[in-house]
């Protein structure tokens, strides 16, 4: 503080000087400097600036070296005293009035400052003001620096690191002053007390780091207690939370027994229920209960009022409905009808209603179809149409089309009615019979025939375009032929139907009780008949009716003859079949034969002559060692085979089982061994080429790079060649790494099956980092089919086992047992509870955990 003060004063002085000093010529300044020099000759150079400051002189200011100017020597007592000029000292050489004035005024100001300063010092140190008097009397000592000292401009001591302030430094200037000893004593006492210098506090980050370190130690210690538990839980395959947990009440009775009425209502109920009087009444006699069941007057009145009210309501309702019934307004009824309809839509769900509705609809439909009211048959509509007004005017046209629309909707058949299954048919018939008589079917058939004939006839071949190409034409022709064939067949069929129809008709007329014959049965036979006169079709299409009778007769005859034949055929067949089935059964002999290589002994059983023969036949051959090929398995002439088989039952005894292999078989066998290995190798090469294709040969685009001979000679560019070679190398490498690379006789396809790709994982599942480990862990099946029942449970146990409703409490500390090993057989529970009989749930000691759930 003191220093600062001084500095400020000195600054002021310097300012004043600079501001107020007259400007002297250089020569004069020089002489002044020369005269001054001898005066200060014994002094050190260092003190020049202090000199400057003290002496009120106009002089040339020499550039002072920086380090010197910055030197902080304020606290050097020697400096302070040595260069203090005596108070009576006056410079002889320089006299200046105005300077004096300024100096005086300055001094006065400085005087005031000094007084205040001493006062402050007094207050701080608590010493009498006399101690500071000397100083105050003295002229202030000024130490100047080039720049004011601040954090931006530290002193050199600070910079060099030896700037520790000691108390001595502070004490030195006031040495010998009154009260100094006292102060000295106190300070020395203080020094003794502390014994050490108080260092500056550490920087904040460092301090905090230390703090953290200390805290971490403590926390680590605390946390390490838990490590074993956390580790155990992390590594446990299963964590249990369900051991010995009682969930409290087990029965409804138990819950009810502890019921205490709490609310008013409950209390009231309880009082009634537990009423002794009632109980007694119940126990003793029913009569008393009646007494207790008395109805109060108020209740009775209430009930009566209620009934009266209801009655009056009913009466009013009746009145209202009567009034409504009387209303004759059409609009009202229309609106009402609409409402009803709307509600009826909902009612349609009701089957009765729906049926009724359907009936109505049907009636409307019938009416519509009979009258054709909306089919523009009216006078007006006819007129409109005849005059062509419907085209002219939009309104008319709209009206007519609306009419048609109505007709369409009305005459549309209702499909939704369920009981219309029979009516459908009848409708169809109705439609068919609509305005036509009995022989409509024949007409229809005639129509169909006509159409088919038409199609058959007009098969034009286009003369131009794609279809005129020869192969197309051929194909068309073929198709046409097929179509014609089909058409013919169709025609025959029509004929058939017609005939049958005619027949039926004739039947109806002739004998009603006759056998009904349908076309389907005669289908197979009929074509032959009709084919005969298929040529006549084109001519006789009109005169069918004439033909009908004859044909019918013929057909009938044929049918009559055919069916018995077929029947007999079928019968014979079935009989044969039966024989087939029966015969083997009879021939099947369950013979237990103890056969040594040579002997063939029959023990017992029903022996057929054939089998006997056979055995005899075989015996002589048995010793011979020929291992001839057995008879061949396939013989294609199965028809003959079948025949043989049918006959075989009777004749097979003589049949030899050996069969000479067919020619094709023999040839196939004979040439089978030809060059198989080479072929296989070729095939393998093919497969390899397909699966690992050879790289394409590099080719230049024709014309490119072939302008000159030099270019031609150079050949392909090097990068192409290189690329090609790389590809080749890669291919050989690929071939070498194939599974079948070393197996000449094997081709193993390495095609990727896309469908099977979904059976593989594309990435490793989370905790795994290596493929091998994952695949090894997958090798064992864990299902009950593959493991003993005792292990299946532990193999498939979920990660967390808990009972529903169990509260999982946080982990509780547990002493570590270093010798403990996790045992899977005896699951260690994380929640231990003292089982309490009927106790409340929460009270048992639990050791739970929540955060450290293991996850695989």
């Amino acid at each position, binding site marked *: 503080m003191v220093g600062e003060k001084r500095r400020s004063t000195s600054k002021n002085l310097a300012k004043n000087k600079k501001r107020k000093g007259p400007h002297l010529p250089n020569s004069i300044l020089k002489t002044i400097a020369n005269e001054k020099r001898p005066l200060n000759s014994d002094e050190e150079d260092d003190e020049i600036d202090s000199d400057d400051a003290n002496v009120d002189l106009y002089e040339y200011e020499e550039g002072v070296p920086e380090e010197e100017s910055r030197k902080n020597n304020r606290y050097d007592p020697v400096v302070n005293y040595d260069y203090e000029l005596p108070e009576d000292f006056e410079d002889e050489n320089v006299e200046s009035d105005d300077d004096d004035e300024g100096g005086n005024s300055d001094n006065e100001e400085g005087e005031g400052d000094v007084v205040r300063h001493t006062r402050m010092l007094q207050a701080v140190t608590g010493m009498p003001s006399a101690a500071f008097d000397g100083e105050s009397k003295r002229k202030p000592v000024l130490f100047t620096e080039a720049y004011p000292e601040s954090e931006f401009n530290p002193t050199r001591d600070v910079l060099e690191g030896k700037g520790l302030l000691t108390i001595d430094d502070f004490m030195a200037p006031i040495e010998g002053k009154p009260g100094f000893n006292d102060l000295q004593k106190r300070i020395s006492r203080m020094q003794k007390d502390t014994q050490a210098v108080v260092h500056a506090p550490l920087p904040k980050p460092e301090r905090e780091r230390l703090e953290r370190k200390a805290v971490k130690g403590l926390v680590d210690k605390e946390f390490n207690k838990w490590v074993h538990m956390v580790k155990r839980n992390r590594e446990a395959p299963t964590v249990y939370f369900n051991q010995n947990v009682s969930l409290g009440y087990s029965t409804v009775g138990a819950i009810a027994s502890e019921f205490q009425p709490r609310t008013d209502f409950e209390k009231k109920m309880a009082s009634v229920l537990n009423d002794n009087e009632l109980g007694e009444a119940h126990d003793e006699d029913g009569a008393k209960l009646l007494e207790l069941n008395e109805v109060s007057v108020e209740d009775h009145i209430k009930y009566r009022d209620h009934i009266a009210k209801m009655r009056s309501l009913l009466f009013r309702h009746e009145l209202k409905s009567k009034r409504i019934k009387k209303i004759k307004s059409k609009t009202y009824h229309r609106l009402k009808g609409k409402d009803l309809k709307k509600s009826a839509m909902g009612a349609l769900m009701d089957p009765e209603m729906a049926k009724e509705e359907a009936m109505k609809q049907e009636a409307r439909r019938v009416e519509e179809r009979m009258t054709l009211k909306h089919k523009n048959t009216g006078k007006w509509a006819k007129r409109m149409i005849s005059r062509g007004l419907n085209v002219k005017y939009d309104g008319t046209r709209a009206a007519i089309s609306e009419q048609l629309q109505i007709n369409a909707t009305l005459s549309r058949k209702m499909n939704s009615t369920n009981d219309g299954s029979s009516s459908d048919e009848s409708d169809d018939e109705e439609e068919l019979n609509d305005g036509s008589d009995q022989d409509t079917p024949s007409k229809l058939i005639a129509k169909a025939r006509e159409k088919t004939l038409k199609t058959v006839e007009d098969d034009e071949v286009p003369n131009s375009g794609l279809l005129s190409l020869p192969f197309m034409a051929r194909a068309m022709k073929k198709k046409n032929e097929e179509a014609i064939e089909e058409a013919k067949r169709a025609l025959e069929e029509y004929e058939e139907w017609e005939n049958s129809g005619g027949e039926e008709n004739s039947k109806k007329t002739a004998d009603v009780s006759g056998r009904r014959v349908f076309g389907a049965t005669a289908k197979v036979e009929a074509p032959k008949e009709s084919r005969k006169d298929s040529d006549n079709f084109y001519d006789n299409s009109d005169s069918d009716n004439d033909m009908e009778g004859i044909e019918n007769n013929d057909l009938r005859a044929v049918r009559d003859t055919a069916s018995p034949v077929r029947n007999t055929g079928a019968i014979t067949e079935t009989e044969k079949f039966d024989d087939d089935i029966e015969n083997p059964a009879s021939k099947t002999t369950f013979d237990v*034969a103890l056969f040594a290589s040579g002997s063939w002994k029959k023990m017992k059983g029903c022996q057929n002559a054939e089998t006997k023969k056979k055995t005899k036949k075989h015996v002589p051959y048995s010793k011979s060692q020929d291992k001839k090929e057995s008879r061949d398995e396939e013989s294609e002439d199965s028809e003959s085979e079948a025949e043989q088989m049918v006959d075989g039952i009777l004749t097979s005894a003589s049949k030899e089982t050996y069969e000479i292999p067919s020619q094709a078989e023999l040839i196939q066998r004979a040439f089978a061994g030809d060059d198989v290995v080479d072929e296989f190798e070729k095939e393998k090469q093919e497969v390899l080429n397909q699966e690992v294709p050879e790289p394409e040969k590099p080719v230049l685009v024709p014309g490119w790079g072939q302008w000159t001979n030099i270019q031609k000679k150079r050949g392909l560019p090097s990068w192409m060649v290189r690329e090609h070679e790389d590809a080749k190398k890669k291919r050989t490498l690929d071939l070498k790494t194939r599974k079948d690379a070393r197996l000449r006789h094997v081709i193993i*396809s390495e095609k990727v099956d896309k469908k099977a790709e979904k*059976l593989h994982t594309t990435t490793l599942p989370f905790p795994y980092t290596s493929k091998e480990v994952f695949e090894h862990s997958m090798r064992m099946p864990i299902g009950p*089919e593959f493991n003993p029942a005792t292990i299946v449970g532990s193999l498939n146990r979920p990660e967390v086992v808990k009972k529903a409703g169990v509260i999982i409490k946080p982990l509780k500390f547990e002493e570590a047992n270093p010798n403990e090993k996790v045992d899977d057989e005896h699951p260690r529970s994380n929640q231990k509870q003292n089982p309490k009989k009927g106790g409340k749930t929460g009270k048992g000691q639990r050791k739970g955990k929540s955060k450290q759930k293991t996850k695989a």
Partner: protein
Amino acid sequence: MELSSEDNNLTEKVLPPIEQESDVELETTVKKYLRGEGADLETLKDKKLKTQLASREKLYGKSAKTAAKIEKWLLPAEAGYLETDGLEKTWRVKQTDIANEVDLLSSRNQYDIVLPDFGPYKLDFTASGRHMIAGGRKGHLALVDMMSMNLIKEIQVKETVRDVAFLHNEQFFAAAQKKYAYIYGRDGTELHCLKERGPVSRLRFLKNHFLLASVNKSGQLHYQDVTYGGMVASIRTGKGRTDVMEVNPYNGVVALGHTGGTVTMWKPTSQAPLVQMQCHPGPVSSVAFHPNGHLMATSGKERKLKIWDLRKFEEVQTIHGFHAKTLSFSQKGLLAAGTGSFVQILGDSSGGSSSHNYSRYMNHSMVKGYQIEKLMFRPYEDVIGIGHSMGWSSILIPGSGEPNFDSWVANPFETSKQRREKEVHLLLDKLPPETIMLDPSKIGAMKPSRRKEKQSREEIEAEKEVAIEAAKSTELKKKTKGRNKPSKRTKKKKEMVENAKRTFPEQGHNNTASKKRRIGEDAAAELPASLKRFARKN
């Protein structure tokens, strides 16, 4: 059921149990149940995963051990065997000798059924071995209950019958007849006529997948799902006609033997064969698979029988001078081969699982002139059924069948209620056809890396995005005064983005749509003038 208990006084002896041996035995069974080694957990860095896997592994070990112990101590029956002392050879033991030693029930399994008229018989057993269907070439189909020897149903279809096969249980069976294959019910009613397959020569049923596989005369392989009747796959083998077809029970892969000496293996989801093996120089006459799926036996017409390891696709053993018309592996791994009227049973004498050495175990000669058509071991019994030209026979082969049945898998004593229950379970557990693959243990594993992977649409999109982003974020150089205008800079940037986009060919349905339209237009142009108005306009 088994022979061993009765047979020990003459030719067979029971070995006294030795402690060490049993330990070794237990270990081997444990290994079997462990289904391979556990992963090396030391390489894992994740401690949590490590401990969890370790505990899992421990459980697996425990499970395997229990299973092994159960197998050792609790299973009710032991496998039968033939043992001779001194110079006696097992293949000299005849059926008569065995018949003297076995119990009544077993001796009932030696019989011949003589049905001379309906020609060589094909046989098929249900998975439990309870029922058998016999199909005579000349149309005789017989469903027999093997336990009670009751003929359940017998029908005469009056057509050539080439093969018969049971579906998932005895309620249904399929027969390959002259023109079509048919499915019949237990009571002989025809349920379905499978016309789509054409004239089928061989039928096999894949019971885990509910697929009825068949190969027809033109060498087409068909897979039909019998649950809903859909044709799952129809594959042209392109190798000509074949009647050698077998299913690998381990993985459901169907093997076909061809005249060129190749055996091809197929699955329904690929049109190309999974594997083609050149097994014989001549035609392949039959193929059989070991129940564990690792071994395949083939026989060629050049009188050689070969045994193959399907894990390496290498030949393990060749047996010369032996041509088998039909081959069959038993549940315990015995191999039966039938030629002419002679049946030979080969046994694996090495005992170890790694090296196989099949050698003669038993012989049986039928009456001369009986041509063996089909051999098939009866499951869960020491019995082999022989279908031949004069009916069918059954002989005892000690040690062929699995002594203990697992009712989860197949139950010979199944009640009808159980059967119904089982049927539902089977249907629920039905495997989709794509699960048929060479190594089914790879299901659920990582997708095998593809060599040349075609990028999916999303990936291409993502790449395009990245490229565009990169183009947008490139810093443009500061050019000279005239060229550094903001308008020029933006133009340049736009150009760069466009270039980045252009490197990714535009894909999408726009192209196809336009193509379609073009096709429509073309069609319209080509139509005759009168029909042009009917051409679809869009």
